[in-house]
């Protein structure tokens, strides 16, 4: 099968073409040793297509960009049979730089000129023959949006054979610089190469140089010194040389009659979107609409999942023979699975909206208007996307920080993103708020909605506040540059947004799923066994203690409650009670704290288990009611306002998410930062909850 790489600038419509070529026939893999997701798709059985990260040049500055050059030059630049370089027809000049660089690596390339529909509407005329002849390449004009012209490209892929590739790489730049020629000639005798520009990558890109063996490194250094090659100045000269040629080509082949219609539309809309006042009003309005939609729309599938998984669990527990398998499936596996997929609707919807905002080009305006505001916190405008995604789930949000080139700003963004109110916190907030906040209205807004909004404000403020403090502590203060294209506004492609949503949700299910599921199983074990005979003889003991009980169900529920109290997890809960007493929590909440240590969403499930198990079936009631009525040994209510508030604060600030720890470790390649995060966030959560409880009960 043909192996095809897809390269191009950001915003060139590359991913949209990838989706058009491969349909849903995609998978996500890994590049060896790094964490950037490798998007692989298949065009029928003809070609395996790899969607490389978007880049302006093969000279890499970020992790994503290093992937591009590493993939291109691996296996002596024979990794791909063909590389399709996608360029936006409305911005040919800038985008052709990448094409000319990749071509000179000696890799068979074809040029795909995208956005043919916009070209046509604006009356611009592109002479493909001249373009093809000047660039010595096959050219395809198509629109990945409308699909026009894609068939020709597909036919080309079907019949392509690297052996019959007719074009030659050139490196005229070398001819213009005689010193370079001398250097390369001597280099060639030492380390034979086919294409000078390919060999040049070894000396011009530090991360590639570092991968060479030390004998080659020292030889290269020696040669550079001998020929007095100043690599940096050649890089600059190389870019200028390429653009001189590109300018000639573009002038010869493109007839730009009028300004693009989109340019005027973009300018007009930007008057509002980047306005001092209206820009922020618009941004906040969009956020409110998105969150409103996410909550109201997601509630239907979430209720559906909740109900049906519950039904499934009870069906299994009734139809399977009683025993180990029944119990582990209906009480361990299924609740764990529910804990994962219950979040999918919210996460999917939020990512759908974020991807639409990116598709339209609006997201870069958000970066534009927030950059200055975020700078005092040590963040930059690009931190907005991870922070917003953090409102869905920290896992993909942490990954989204890859686009931030400055390592310090990226680190800060990753460190504070877990403070954002992710959807896993919502069930906890919802039940605790419902417990203690009255259901009245304040100017038409319910108190409970206001309280929930307050939790979002708390999360965001803590994220920014900690970033501010960390920024003060960090030594390296260099502020990076923020060079970012502000693309023309365009209508979103729902197909693309759907694909992005699908990808991110899949990442969540796989990453978080593994951990949540294993925790659920461990919990089941800890709750199903006890260290002493009190657990095993629960029934006898209960019958002895309550001889008056005759109702089977009542006895059962007492037995279950007794078992839980004397299971491993019960003892654990009691073990930590002295530490959490000052926060107002009893051992039952202690169990929930332990179980939700690895995944905070487990809190509600555990509460359900604890109160469900201890329920008295003659008074059917919801978990909420049971929590409300729960009392300690002296008859005082457990869930008072101070306790609920203290819990709310605790869950807002504590890390309580193993998947986040895992993903931060993967992204920053060190255990140091996730451990800092864990200690800092847990410490802050404990102290704040302590403060709240003690002040309120003083």
């Amino acid at each position: 099968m043909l192996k095809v790489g897809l390269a191009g600038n950001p915003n060139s419509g590359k991913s949209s073409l990838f989706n058009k070529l491969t349909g849903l026939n995609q998978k996500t893999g890994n590049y060896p040793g790094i964490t950037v997701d490798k998007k692989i798709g298949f065009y029928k059985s003809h070609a395996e297509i790899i969607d490389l990260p978007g880049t302006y040049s093969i000279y890499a500055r970020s992790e994503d960009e290093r992937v591009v050059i590493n993939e291109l030059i691996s296996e002596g630049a024979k990794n791909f049979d063909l590389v399709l370089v996608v360029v936006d027809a409305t911005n040919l000049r800038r985008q052709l730089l990448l094409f000319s660089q990749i071509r000179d690596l000696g890799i068979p390339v074809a040029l795909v000129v995208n956005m043919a529909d916009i070209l046509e509407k604006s009356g611009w005329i592109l002479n493909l023959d001249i373009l093809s002849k000047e660039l010595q390449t096959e050219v395809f004009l198509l629109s990945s949006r409308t699909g026009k012209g894609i068939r020709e490209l597909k036919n080309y892929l079907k019949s392509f054979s690297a052996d019959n590739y007719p074009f030659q790489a050139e490196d005229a730049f070398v001819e213009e610089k005689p010193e370079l020629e001398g250097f390369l000639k001597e280099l060639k005798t030492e380390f034979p190469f086919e294409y000078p520009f390919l060999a040049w990558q070894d000396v011009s890109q530090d991360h590639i140089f570092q991968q060479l063996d030390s004998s080659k490194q020292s030889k290269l250094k020696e040669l550079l010194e001998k020929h007095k090659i100043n690599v940096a100045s050649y890089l600059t000269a190389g870019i200028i040389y390429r653009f001189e040629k590109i300018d000639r080509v573009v002038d010869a082949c493109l007839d730009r009659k009028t300004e693009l219609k989109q340019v005027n539309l973009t300018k007009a809309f930007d008057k509002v979107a980047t306005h001092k006042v209206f820009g922020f009003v618009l941004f906040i309005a969009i956020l409110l609409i998105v969150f409103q939609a996410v909550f109201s729309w997601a509630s239907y599938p979430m209720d559906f999942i909740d109900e049906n998984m519950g039904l499934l669990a009870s069906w299994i527990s009734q139809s399977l023979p009683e025993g180990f398998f029944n119990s582990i499936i209906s009480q361990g596996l299924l609740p764990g699975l529910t804990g994962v997929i219950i979040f999918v609707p919210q996460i999917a919807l939020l990512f759908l909206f974020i991807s639409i905002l990116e598709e339209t080009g609006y997201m870069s305006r958000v970066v534009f208007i927030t950059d200055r505001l975020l700078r005092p916190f040590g963040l930059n405008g690009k931190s907005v996307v991870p922070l917003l995604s953090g409102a869905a789930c920290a896992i993909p949000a942490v990954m989204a920080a890859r686009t931030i080139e400055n390592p310090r700003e990226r680190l800060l963004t990753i460190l504070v993103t877990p403070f954002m109110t992710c959807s896993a916190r919502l069930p906890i907030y919802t039940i605790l708020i419902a417990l203690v906040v009255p259901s009245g209205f304040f100017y038409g807004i319910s108190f409970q909605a206001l309280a929930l909004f307050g939790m979002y404000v708390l999360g965001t403020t803590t994220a920014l506040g900690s970033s501010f403090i960390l920024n003060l502590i960090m030594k390296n203060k260099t502020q990076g540059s923020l060079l970012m294209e502000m693309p023309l506004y365009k209508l979103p492609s729902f197909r693309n947004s759907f694909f992005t949503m699908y990808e991110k949700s899949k990442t969540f299910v796989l990453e978080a799923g593994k951990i949540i599921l294993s925790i659920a199983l461990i919990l089941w074990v800890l709750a199903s066994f006890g260290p002493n005979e009190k657990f095993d003889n629960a029934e006898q003991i209960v019958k002895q203690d309550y001889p008056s009980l005759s109702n089977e169900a009542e006895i059962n529920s007492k037995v279950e409650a007794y078992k839980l109290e004397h299971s491993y997890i019960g003892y654990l809960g009691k073990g930590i009670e002295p530490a959490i007493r000052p926060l107002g929590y009893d051992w039952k909440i202690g169990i929930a704290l332990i179980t939700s240590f690895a995944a905070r969403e487990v809190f509600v499930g555990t509460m359900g288990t604890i109160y469900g198990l201890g329920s008295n079936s003659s008074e059917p009631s919801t978990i909420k009611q049971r929590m409300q009525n729960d009392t300690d040994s002296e008859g005082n209510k457990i869930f008072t306002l101070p306790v609920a508030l203290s819990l709310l604060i605790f869950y807002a600030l504590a890390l309580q998410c193993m998947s986040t720890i895992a993903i931060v470790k993967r992204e920053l390649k060190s255990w140091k930062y996730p451990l800092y995060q864990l200690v800092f966030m847990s410490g802050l959560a404990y102290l704040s909850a302590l403060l709240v409880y003690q002040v309120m009960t003083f």
Partner: protein
Amino acid sequence: MLKINFAQQMKKGASEIKRLSDLAIGHEATLIDFKNEESKNQLMEMGCIPGIRIKREYDAPFGDPICVAVSGYFLMIRKAEAEMIIVEE
């Protein structure tokens, strides 16, 4: 060092030589040189080659970053960066 150079150029009456950050909104100028070696190549790879026309389109709230039109597209650039870019109006 850099500031003295600017001052001298201003005095000489070469009043059109200025920093990109000093270009008025809606004005267009020719890109001359970069004073920041670190971001120079990145800017050039994004099409900002000396000799090209560059126009300050609009500023973000609080005047930073700024948006310029160059090489047929809009580029956002921080003010500190724009101060290191020399243009001729």
